[in-house]
């Protein structure tokens, strides 16, 4: 039933730095199916945004080395020419960012900015304008007819993010990459934006790759989840399964660090230490220095992703051994 849309195969991204290589992303594998929400979660610096940007070929360029495959609808995006990539961006893969103000031109009316993209389809101006208004209504913009004539600074944060979503929708992509789409918004607005994204998914069967640090969002909207730590996807699988039975020690600890109860029920779990800076390809699990269950093997060998259950993979030496 589920048709594969995007597949990352052994994706690794290294940055050249003074003292060698900085391994920002290492051996990431994941599959996003049509109409599915895949959430990549992790703390700052874990490489989640780098993965998202590499799909769109938006990395700064110059000092990074990418290996592995990014297969979108059967085609490796890394082998696409610039022209081919331009045709894919927006039309087939849309992207929205954390701060919509960075993506909107401050001196053009938002309606005009959107019409520009629609005019690429060689429609006449009136038709384009009508489509803009329709899209504004699709994203539940209040007073859509008037708001098209607003400048970005006249809109609130939530409205700007709606403009971005509408803009993305105007090209009707099959995959939407949303990089922290609600982080800058208030909870009530966040809930509205989430609602819009859910409706998109149901109405247009758009697949969404959601990049976030917020487990709450994942619980609300995602079908699948991939947890990243220090550049590696240490666990991935069905969201219900992983919330109920996290297997990787990092996932387990992170879930317990989330404040979901009251202080009367006890202190939060914390993870000692800090994320290592991966400048050389050292053997061993990247979480080993903070892991309460670390054994000798964890420091010497990098664990492979092991199969835990249906579609559920985990990169840990301690997992899956005892069952087999």
């Amino acid at each position, binding site marked *: 039933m589920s048709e594969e849309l995007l597949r990352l195969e052994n994706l690794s991204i290294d940055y050249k730095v003074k003292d060698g290589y900085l391994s920002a992303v290492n051996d990431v594998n994941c599959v996003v199916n049509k109409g599915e929400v895949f959430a990549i979660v992790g*703390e*700052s610096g874990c490489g989640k945004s780098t993965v998202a940007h590499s799909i769109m070929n938006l990395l700064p360029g110059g000092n990074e080395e990418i290996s592995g495959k990014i297969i979108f609808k059967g085609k490796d995006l890394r082998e696409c020419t610039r022209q081919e990539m331009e045709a894919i961006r927006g039309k087939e893969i849309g992207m929205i960012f954390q701060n919509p103000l960075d993506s909107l031109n401050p001196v053009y009316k938002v309606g005009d900015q959107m019409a520009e993209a629609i005019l690429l389809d060689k429609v006449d101006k009136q038709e384009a304008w009508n489509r803009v208004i329709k899209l504004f209504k699709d994203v539940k913009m*209040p007073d859509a007819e008037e708001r098209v004539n607003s400048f970005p600074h006249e809109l*609130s944060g*939530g*409205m700007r993010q709606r403009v971005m979503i509408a803009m993305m929708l105007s090209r009707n992509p099959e995959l939407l990459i949303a990089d922290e789409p609600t982080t800058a918004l*208030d*909870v*009530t*607005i*966040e*809930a*509205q934006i*989430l*609602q819009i994204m859910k409706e998109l998914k149901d109405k247009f069967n758009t697949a969404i790759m959601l990049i976030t*640090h*917020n*487990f*709450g*969002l*994942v*619980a*609300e*909207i*995602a079908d699948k989840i991939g947890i990243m730590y220090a550049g590696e996807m240490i666990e991935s699988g069905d*969201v*219900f399964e992983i*919330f109920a039975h996290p297997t990787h020690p990092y996932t387990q*600890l*992170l*879930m317990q*660090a*989330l*404040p*979901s*109860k*009251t*202080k009367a029920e006890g*202190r*939060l*779990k*914390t*993870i000692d230490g*800090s994320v290592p800076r991966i400048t050389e390809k050292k053997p061993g699990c990247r979480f080993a220095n903070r892991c309460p269950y670390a054994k000798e093997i964890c420091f010497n060998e990098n664990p492979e992703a092991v199969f835990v259950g249906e579609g559920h993979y985990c990169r840990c030496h301690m997992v899956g051994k005892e069952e087999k």
Partner: protein
Amino acid sequence: MEEKVMIKLDGLKKYFSISKGLLKKSTTFAKAVDDISLTINEGEIVGLVGESGSGKTTLARVILNLTKKTEGTVIIDGIDVSKASGEEMKKLRSEVAVVFQDPAANLNPRQTVESSIMRPMIIHGVPKEEARQKAKGVLEMVKMDQRYLDSYPHQLSGGQLQRIAIARALALNPRIMILDEPTSALDVSVQAQILNLLLDLQEQLNLTYLVITHDLNVIKYISDRIAVMYLGRLVEFGPTSEIANNAKHPYTRGLLDAAPVLDPNMRNRKKELMTGDPGSLIKIGPGCRFCDRCRYVTEECRTTMPEDTVVAPGHQVACFHPLED
């Protein structure tokens, strides 16, 4: 048991005037804090929650006397802030400490951690050697190694910086701490460390906290009582369990419903999503501030400001139509 009141706000108002028109003649007011009364007892953690622009930070600044109030009284530890003498004011300054959201922004990038922590003590006339000893002491209290004393802010991570900010706040032995979004800039695992640290310190030193945040999960975790603000007004105030499980104000309920729940099985729960944006402080009518977004709005709400009514012990709500259970 009679509890000691540490902070008492009575009818506190802060209006910012806005000049309009070519000659700047017509003046309107942004009522950032409008008629807020509440008390915070000793050793209590009160959480203040609201969306951006609801006046939470302005309220904190007015309490700290960093912004001059328009009307009302602020009494801290028995001293009326506006009538305090120079001597009393100095005492208050050492008694009330503050920690802001962005730790990197409130530490001097050119000074070492040690001199940043020592600075408030020097200003308050603590001898240098004693201040140095105390700096070591407070660093230990926030569970950081002594070697960081010689570090500069850019060498430290966000969590470490926030610990330094807390250490500096502790330097003058405060009894009250005002924490403005103390964990908003931090990652989940670091946030847990800072929250635990704050709770430990509060227990050890019997501190009184006013925690300002927009994160409902954090506020539910840390607070004894929760105050909810909407566009400058206090709409609901009560014990944490009452607010979390038995919210009476439609706004509080909407806020709680909007907050993502950390359980995918709950995603299809019944939610009352609020529509619209948190309005503007400038265009406000005479009635309830929430009337434009409220689904239970009646004519009365648009014309009259609801009074605070007590619905349960210690639980007050400003609404004409408090929600039924």
